[in-house]
């Protein structure tokens, strides 16, 4: 576990607030992931209890809700929009060939709109995560790890 050996080309990056969280450290998580068959290892039940407790806490429910209320509709929307595009391109070439302006036809506009919507959604998701989720997730991470000690 040389997570802290900052000798690489990417030495410690303090501009990343997540990095302030001590990684793994003395608690047992790493060992547990490593040797997962060890059901008899002490503390397994305790940790499960903590996870259940955190999962049922209002703060976690709120954070999960924020995440899911954004990504589920967004994923449904872009998948539907992409499938619509593919189906139209293969089944309605007449519609897609209709000229819009100059050399641009519906198909070109739709293709460029796919690129544009991908870039736009990427920006919107990153912004939503940064402003609405990161703080809460970090607090919950601290809180959960504190309870594990």
């Amino acid at each position: 576990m040389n997570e802290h050996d900052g000798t690489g080309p990417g030495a410690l990056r303090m501009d990343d607030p997540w990095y302030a969280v001590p990684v793994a450290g003395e608690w047992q998580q790493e060992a547990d992931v490593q040797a997962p068959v060890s059901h008899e290892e002490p503390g397994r039940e305790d940790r499960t209890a903590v996870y259940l407790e955190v999962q049922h806490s209002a703060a976690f429910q709120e954070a999960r809700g924020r995440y899911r209320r954004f990504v589920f509709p967004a994923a449904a929307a872009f998948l539907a929009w992409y499938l619509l595009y593919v189906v139209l391109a293969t089944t309605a070439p007449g519609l897609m060939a209709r000229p819009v302006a100059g050399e641009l036809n519906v198909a070109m506009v739709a293709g460029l709109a796919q690129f544009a919507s991908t870039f736009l959604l990427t920006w919107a998701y990153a912004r939503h995560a940064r402003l609405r989720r990161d703080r809460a997730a970090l607090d919950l991470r601290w809180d959960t790890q504190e309870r594990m000690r």
Partner: protein
Amino acid sequence: MTGNHQGLALVLFTVFVSVTLAITAWAGRRRSSSVEFFAGGRLFSPLENGFAITGDYISAGSLLGVSGLVALVGYDGVLYCVGFLVGFLVVLMLIAELVRNCGRFTIADVVAVRMRQRPARIALGTSSVIVSVIYLVAQMVGAGSLVALLLGGQGAAVRTWTVIGVGGLMVFYVSFGGMRATTWIQIVKAVLLMAGSVALTVLVLVRFHGDLGGLLRSAAAGSGHGKDFLAPGLKYGGTWTARLDFMSLGLALVLGTAGLPHILSRFYTVPTARSARRSVVWAIGLIGSFYLMTIVLGFAAAAVVGSDSVRSSNQAGNTAVPLLALDLGGGAGTTGGTVLFAVVGAVAFATILAVVAGITLASSASVAHDLYATVRRRSGSRRRSKESKEQEEVKVARVAAFGIGAVAIVLSLYAQGQNVAFLVGLAFAVAASANLPALLYTLFWRRFTTRGTLWAVYGGLGPAVLLVILSPVVSGSPDALFPGVDFHLFPLQNPGLVSIPLGFLAGWLGTVLSPEPADEGKHAEAEVRSLTGAGAV
């Protein structure tokens, strides 16, 4: 193709290989813990990892194949570009951060948080290795053809030695440099690729005085198809079989990206979920711009070189961009043309080398960390220290890289000269059918069980492979792998349209029919860890 091209291309390529060997030697000097070997120390920055994802994702098939497709069939080639890009939204929103929070090195790590270790790891490890080997063979056969095309060597011996050379180099990178060397090779390759594409695109824009409408007009004229060239239908517009085949491929492209082992293992090279997200944002920006440039270059090849000349040089259009570069530089025989042609050739080689290294690393991680470690655990010696187990995993991964390299070389030599373009689509289809359902259910479905996991993986993997064996690419058509016999029952080349829904259906069915309900505690652990990063390594 004069001797000048070949000489210069060989010099540039030798420089690239020397740089990558130096990187490998530098990275190989570190002590090899498993975090170092499988995750490169986990301290890459989002920008670095964004470039590395771009390097891992964009294969020579995209650089030469997709632009060539645009040059030959116009708009139908654009459909590929859209599918390759939109797939990253699935990765960004549903996969990247959660996988980074839950796993250590592989896809199976994520599923194993909730499910019974042994069967889950064997299932996901197996499907990951299969996806990787399919993708690897596609890339290495492509490498053989590329040398024949760009260096003018038409003999079988040239192809054979190219495949062996590429295979040898990738095994060397992976087993001696691990993830750190592989990541830096991806970064160097991505920078070269983007620089080369930007340079060519700028030259195209200069040639057409920035008039994209004029470019499209000339492309339509140069293609010989007129207006039809700018609308869908030239390749996939004919029969309903062709249309369904494209829908199948489209579905596989958009859902498969999120199941590719070598893409997902990139998220373990950054320290946190937040940096995993930021690396995908970088990757989407880079990959999106790359495919926009690919479209411009494809249309420009049709306009400047002409579709017929491209087709007569290579039936699949793979030489469209090199020929365009030759023309943009001043034409055959000029210094500018020679230099640009050689640069494109060298970038294409670099692309193949980097991609195969990334895939080899991901699959040897699956072999060592999922398959070997699981079998090994069963056979005793649970008392050994963590360090010695990690050392052993790294050792096994190094050996596995040799094994996978040997298998890929043998398969590629056997498939040499075959039409293997369908293999990339197949790798995406298997990834979407076997890996994605298990991953998504694990992360988002409370009731998902171990039996559901196994059914999802095998229920997607089995049909995908079976349908390909029964498809016209294996038998019953003139350019099939076995043209002499005909046992094809399934009409489509790409199995995605059937096998992806089957994977999801099997996962649901297995869960509903499970003898025991899902473990609430483990579900809580997976959910809390994936969304908050608690306990992430």
